[in-house]
């Protein structure tokens, strides 16, 4: 690769080469600290802004999210929707199918931080690992249902509606793993009683609030109208905004922890 002046770790550059070079610089620096347990974690962390842009773009590309699809739509209306927006549905869902599991590395950064908590056993870490895979996989299943509906939009409208329903129910009600994850993290942070806790105390309360905000979406199957319906205020907006806020806040909190671990590790090696 052509030699360029070193520009630090900022991801403010737009050029792809710059981005690649910046990542490589981080990788090389981390590789020189092989003995540090947090080695390479900054690479994982700095993939997040890029992934977040893709998530956000795909979210708004899917026409069923911009104005949430109504569960009251007739089979014909649903089929028309898939016929009219076939391309956007396909592209957005392919993007989300690719990148929804990119949440797992972030969760594993959290799991690695949990090693430093003042716990007697790794039980809560195992609990978080136990649910970390399921939520993204449930979302992956959702994309499969919606992609399947868009694969052949001219099929019988009732079949398209069935696939659409399965997608929306999985997407909306599939919160049990995220609810549990927030609960486990809240408890883990609460139990982390030491002089310098891994995460600040408020992160425990924050997780508790997010967990509670996700619960109403579990009841979306009971009604097709009102705030609990899958296009309703609590089941769609509160739930999805809560997930977005969780990802942003936890990324920042984990980012800080990764940086301070890395600094401590580098000091130890030096």
């Amino acid at each position: 690769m052509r030699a360029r002046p070193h520009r630090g770790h900022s991801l403010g550059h737009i050029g792809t080469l710059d981005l690649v070079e910046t990542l490589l610089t981080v990788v090389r620096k981390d590789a020189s600290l092989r003995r540090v347990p947090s080695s390479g974690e900054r690479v994982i962390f700095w993939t997040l802004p890029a992934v977040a842009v893709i998530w956000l773009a795909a979210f708004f590309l899917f026409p069923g999210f911009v104005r949430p699809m109504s569960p009251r739509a007739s089979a014909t209306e649903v089929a028309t929707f898939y016929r009219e927006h076939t391309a956007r549905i396909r592209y957005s869902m392919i993007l989300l199918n690719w990148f929804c599991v990119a949440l797992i590395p972030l969760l594993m950064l959290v799991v690695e931080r949990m090693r430093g908590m003042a716990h007697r056993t790794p039980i809560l870490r195992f609990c978080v690992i136990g649910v970390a895979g399921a939520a993204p996989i449930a979302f992956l299943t959702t994309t499969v249902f919606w992609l399947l509906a868009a694969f052949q939009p001219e099929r019988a409208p009732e079949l398209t509606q069935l696939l659409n329903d399965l997608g929306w129910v999985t997407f909306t009600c599939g919160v049990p793993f995220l609810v549990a994850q927030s609960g486990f993290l809240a408890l883990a942070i609460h139990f982390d009683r030491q002089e310098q806790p891994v995460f600040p105390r408020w992160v425990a309360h924050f997780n508790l609030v997010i967990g509670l905000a996700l619960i109403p979406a579990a009841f979306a199957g009971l009604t097709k109208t009102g705030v609990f319906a899958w296009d309703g205020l609590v089941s769609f907006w509160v739930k999805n905004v809560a997930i977005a806020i969780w990802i942003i806040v936890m990324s920042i909190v984990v980012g800080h922890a990764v940086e301070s671990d890395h600094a401590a590790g580098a000091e130890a090696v030096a």
Partner: protein
Amino acid sequence: MTRRSLRDNPKRELWLAWGATVFFYNLYAVVFFLFTHIQPPGQPWYSPDQASTWFTEHHHGLGIGLALIFVFGGLSATSIALITYSIRRMSVSRAFSYSYLIIYSVSAVPGFLFICVALTAGIMRPERSPQLQHWLYQLGFLSFSGTMGVFLIGSLIWMCAILLDGNRVFPKWFGYLNLCNALTEVVVSPSWIFKTGVFPWNGLIAWWIDVVIFGIYTGVFITLLRSMIIREDFGTGPLPAVPAWRFWQSPVETAP
């Protein structure tokens, strides 16, 4: 247990996970047997019209029951975490414990999320054509009974770990009970083929015998996990034996 004793108890994480496990399995039983009537299961030989009627008849119970599973389903991770911990406490490689953790974590999506999604979609539109309701009905029950490999291999891994273990975390007979649980996943396989007789998803073998064995297995492992927590000394050698008279003592009294 008082607030203070919980905070000071070095086994608090273990006890909370154990309590959540007990809560989860009780909730599971209440929801599946009483609320939704998913257990004992509906008939595999139902016609499309009968399947459609089944959804209508169980509408409210299914709606509320499945929503509760959507809220609390993630607590299934607590028993998986405890069992993973139990295997790590044994004198075997951690490969056993991590295999168990991954296999059972993955099982959640096909094992219980699919049935909840399929049956929820079923109650949302009672006016849907009976053929499609029939398909949802079958997707629900078959994914639930027919998700086999994860539990088969998971149980066998736990069994091998127990039989190889020199730290006497569990009695050897429980290793063989794992084999019984694994075998239930073998004999449930004909439910993918038969609609009547002893083999279908509600049959004598695939349901009645399997549920009894699974019920005993679950009750036994929850009890044995409790025993393990009581005996845990946070060392790496053999777990101390527990005198019979201490076995039913409260966790606080037995905590070091």
